[in-house]
């Protein structure tokens, strides 16, 4: 602010909302600039006038009206359908989500146009087969063998 270039700094100076370096710079400038000193005094007076303006008290009937409305439901928190399940809500919800996801995945696999990565499944199958945990040839003879991981196309990819 060496040549009164940015007087908005004066307001920030008055409010002590600038760093110490700028504060010192402005202080130094004010010592030799009548115009900026006068502007600063004017800003100080305006600020004091606004600060001294009486505060408005909210009318009691307004407070009462708002309080009356606060007895309504909390839409973001309170859902009537969970009202009867205060403690079971989360586990039941998680179980239901898992079931829906499993059902959805099952339907997806039946969809011939939808390709899923089967490499992990085939690897697991091979291991289980080697350990005789499942009947031999169950998956190897099926059409799933056509869907190698490398052929997978992400339907959501651009």
């Amino acid at each position, binding site marked *: 602010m060496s040549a009164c270039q940015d007087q*908005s700094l004066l307001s920030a100076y008055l409010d002590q909302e600038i760093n110490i370096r700028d504060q010192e710079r402005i202080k130094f400038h004010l010592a030799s600039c009548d115009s900026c000193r006068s502007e600063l005094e004017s800003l100080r007076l305006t600020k004091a006038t606004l600060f001294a303006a009486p505060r408005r008290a909210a009318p009691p009937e307004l407070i009462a009206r708002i309080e009356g409305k606060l007895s309504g439901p909390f839409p973001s*928190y309170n859902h009537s359908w969970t009202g009867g399940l205060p403690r079971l809500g989360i586990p039941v919800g998680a179980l239901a989500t898992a079931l829906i996801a499993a059902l959805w995945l099952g339907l997806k696999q039946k969809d011939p146009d939808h390709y899923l990565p089967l490499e992990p499944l085939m690897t697991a199958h091979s291991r289980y087969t080697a350990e005789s945990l499942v009947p031999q040839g169950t998956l190897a003879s099926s059409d799933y063998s056509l869907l190698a991981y490398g052929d997978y196309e992400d339907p959501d990819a651009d």
Partner: protein
Amino acid sequence: MKRRSEDFRQLLRLWGEKAYNFAYRLSGNEQDAQDLMQEAFMRAYTHFSSYDRTRPFDSWLLRILHNIYLDGVRRYSHNHMVSLDIHSPANGSAWEQVLPDQQAAPGDEIVRRETDEMVQKALNSTPVHYRTAVTLRDIEGLSYEEIGKIMGCPVGTVRSRIHQGRVLIRRAYEALEKEGKIQ
């Protein structure tokens, strides 16, 4: 739900005065201030789940109130919300509803009211962004950073709005003084 409702009542008691004063200084009249405050608290109540509890509630509330006011200004005309003539407290009964200072002498009370009337008229004559920034700083005493969060702008913008706002308010106030509004 009852607990949350009670918590919110506490917040209303804590911040109601601040919200109302800000609403009044923004809108310039009692009726709009009441509507603004009620709408702001109801929105805050409805969307309380989106409130970041690590930040001050009053800043969040004032931001909601400010946005409602801006919506109102955009939707209707500027004059609808801040008319200098129709809603001026000096011309209506609104000032009589303001709690009087029982300790003040009658003469002081008149001067106080007239000064306050001029302050509000000067604020009303200033564009909304400047008026908001100056009100939040000089009347509500918030920091530049808090004002930036409420108004959704950088601190540098807040700084220039406060300065420009003070200059405009001072000019308007001086013009009113010259009109002989104050004794």
